[in-house]
């Protein structure tokens, strides 16, 4: 300063205080100070802790297969939502079948989620992305429980099973996880990606043309009859059984599902994906999904996409289910990480290479 007056301490102190206050507020907003928050990185760390880090792949549902097809809307869904996907017409879809877990080369003989992700494009330029599982319910209702679940169920290096000393108190504190495990133990484990019903997991807010909002869950119900894998001999199943079956099946013909929109009854739990909706519900058949082609992730269009279920067209919005935010943030963190790491080969791609070399 070229001012020849004495250095004013007051104004400098004031300026310093303002800058420090802004810095502190910024640090608080960023979560660097104050109460601990669970962010996407914490979820990724828990997944990596559970199944080992597999750089370059989705941190969950790493093993996948791309597909493409169409969704033919019959117009009936327009009673619930103004989304163009429900207006009578045929819309292109791409998607991805996957099986739970972070290991892209894991065996298919596991009693875990079989999943279908979809990306539906409509002529109005909007997108509807979905990430669905073959169970109507999810083991946990919130992100803190999800992180705890990943930590508690880490397989022991020797037994290959979670440590009972960790698992017992965890299940005692999380009866919803116990209920899910009981459900999975009894439920049929589909022996094909093509004969499973895929559920939206969460409820979503649908808005019709009168502005009426309803909470809706949906499911894609297969045309093919459900038959299950023998759970007693899962360890003898060829590593990529489900993927090779779907590739072979699609070479012979397409697979179809009906989209059923299920409207919540008064009293249905809409903010917890752990709770199924039971009893009769208003259900609307909105159209048919047809999958005509599958391809390994190396060749397909699905690998470099984030099937974030919160990417929704006008007419479909989020519900009060906090799991949706957690899924969105976690998928995004997983996407950013694998984008920086660079993609690795897929299990289905290995077979493709072997067969092309033949």
């Amino acid at each position, binding site marked *: *300063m*070229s*001012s020849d007056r004495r250095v*004013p301490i007051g*104004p*400098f102190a*004031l*300026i310093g205080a*303002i*800058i420090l206050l*802004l*810095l502190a*507020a*910024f640090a608080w*907003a*960023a*979560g660097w100070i104050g109460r601990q*928050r*669970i*962010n*996407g990185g*914490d*979820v990724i760390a828990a997944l990596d802790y559970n199944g080992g880090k597999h750089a370059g792949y989705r941190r969950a549902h790493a093993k996948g297969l791309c597909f493409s097809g169409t969704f033919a809307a019959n117009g009936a869904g327009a009673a619930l939502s103004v989304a163009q996907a429900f207006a009578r017409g045929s819309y292109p879809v791409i998607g991805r079948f996957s099986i739970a877990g972070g290991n892209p080369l894991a065996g298919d003989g596991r009693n875990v989620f079989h999943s279908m992700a979809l990306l539906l494009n409509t002529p*109005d*330029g*909007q*997108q509807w992305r979905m990430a669905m599982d073959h169970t109507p319910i999810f083991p946990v209702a919130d*992100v803190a429980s999800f992180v705890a679940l990943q930590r508690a169920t880490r397989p022991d290096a020797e037994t290959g099973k979670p440590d009972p000393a960790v698992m017992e108190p965890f299940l005692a504190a999380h009866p919803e996880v116990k209920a899910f495990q009981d459900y999975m133990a009894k439920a049929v484990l589909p022996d094909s990606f093509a004969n499973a019903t895929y559920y939206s997991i969460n409820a979503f807010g649908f808005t019709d043309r009168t502005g009426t909002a309803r909470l809706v869950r949906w499911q894609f119900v297969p045309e093919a009859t459900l038959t299950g894998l023998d759970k007693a001999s899962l360890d003898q199943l060829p590593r990529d059984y489900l993927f090779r079956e779907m590739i072979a099946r699609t070479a012979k013909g397409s697979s179809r599902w009906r989209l059923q929109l299920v409207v919540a009854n008064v009293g249905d739990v809409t903010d917890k994906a752990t709770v199924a909706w039971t009893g009769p519900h208003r259900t609307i058949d909105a159209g048919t999904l047809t999958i005509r082609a599958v391809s390994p992730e190396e060749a397909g269009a699905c690998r*470099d*996409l*984030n099937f974030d279920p*919160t*990417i929704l*067209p*006008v007419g479909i919005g*989020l519900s009060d289910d*906090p799991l*949706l*935010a*957690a899924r*969105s*943030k*976690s998928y995004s963190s997983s*996407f*950013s990480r*694998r*984008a*920086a790491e*660079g*993609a690795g080969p897929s299990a289905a791609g290995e077979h493709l290479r072997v067969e092309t070399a033949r």
Partner: protein
Amino acid sequence: MTRHSLDFHPALRVLHWLIALAVLAMLFIGVGMVSTAGPLYPALLALHRPIGIVILVLVLIRLPLRLATGAPALPHNLAPLQKRIAAGSHILLYAAMIGMPLIGWAMLSAGSYPVLVVNGFTLPPILPHDLALYALLREAHTVVALLFFALILGHLAAALAHGLVRRDGVLRSMTLGHATAQPIEKTAASPASYDDAVDPVTVSVDKRTRVASDDA
């Protein structure tokens, strides 16, 4: 012309404070939304994109206006190095204001995300779908944001030092301005002596010494 040569154009001042508010909000929303996997994440994300586009539009109006109307000269007794830092930091601030929304838009494009602004209004992609590019831009979006915030703190500290310590009228040139704050002086002095002064620096030094108490 009511604009005084000691001040920024009134429209620039309005834009400056609108953008200042929006940029600060954006930086806080940005670091806030990535800090949580809770319900605030989608809520903040839904604000982040439209505000970003609003900033881009405002700054694209502001920059040509700034280039056309210029800036008041800095006090002559400011060290040359300080003047260079001031000029450089202003260029960086403009670069960040334009760059951040563009990086965000480009990043979403490279990640093949719909660039949803508000209520179904989506912008077209400005880059091809490319994950390596996405990763780079995603990182840049964070790094530039943090540098931007540091730059803003420096800018604010300097502006406050002009207003509270030096009391040289520089802060006032972006706030109320001299003409409106000094109606008595305006009538006392001939307007020509401000706008058409042969040596505006000499005039402004004299003036800025007198208006100094106003910034306190």
